[in-house]
């Protein structure tokens, strides 16, 4: 009984992770510029990988080294993915790439570009 539940959960998480990975890959193709594409890549790095690894954890037959290694892979991705995507976006910005922006948007609470030193 418990094994059936574990297998079902494993199925659910692995299929969910696969779906998220496919959606992220489609997003990398569809979205218009490097900044928006990095959001789609972030989907793969966070939830796609996370769900897939959680699904595999349910298959590791209890608490053993396999489970520990899966957790380590998850932690390695968790710590490295924001650093590399930040480095990528920052390098693109420093290289003079202009992001596509929606015009005329006023955001409440955001700091203005220049002259606003009220903080």
């Amino acid at each position, binding site marked *: 009984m418990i094994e059936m539940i574990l297998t079902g959960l494993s199925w659910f998480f692995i*299929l969910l992770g696969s779906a998220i990975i*496919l959606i992220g*890959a489609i997003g*990398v193709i569809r979205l218009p510029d490097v900044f928006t594409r*990095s959001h789609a890549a972030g989907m793969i790095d966070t939830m796609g990988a996370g769900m897939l690894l959680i699904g595999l954890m349910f298959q590791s037959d209890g608490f053993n080294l396999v489970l520990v290694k899966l957790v380590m*892979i998850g932690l*390695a991705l968790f710590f490295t993915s924001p650093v590399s995507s930040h480095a990528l976006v920052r390098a*693109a910005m420093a290289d003079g*790439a202009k992001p596509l922006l929606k015009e005329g948007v006023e955001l409440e609470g955001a700091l203005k570009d220049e002259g606003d030193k009220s903080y």
Partner: protein
Amino acid sequence: MYIAAVVAILIAIALGLVRASLGPTIYDRILAVNKIGTLTVLLIAVHGFLAGRPEFLDIALVYALINFIGTIAVLKYFSFKDLGHDGRDSNEAHKEDA
């Protein structure tokens, strides 16, 4: 179940290759390569379970770290045109340009 995950990952890698060859900027390509690296980590892990040999997880762990360091190294090379650069002077120059 593992087969479904492997097929999904392979399709995603193929789409990533399409993006890497289309470009248009160098950063799109680096993004695609980084994504392919992450997917490769997952592919190795899933393949370990598919083949019943969880030792593959060690390789996946090492690949995750190599993928990160490789991305950072390529980005540094294209930003500073020099892997030994300390990153300070060129940053100042960028600020003055802008």
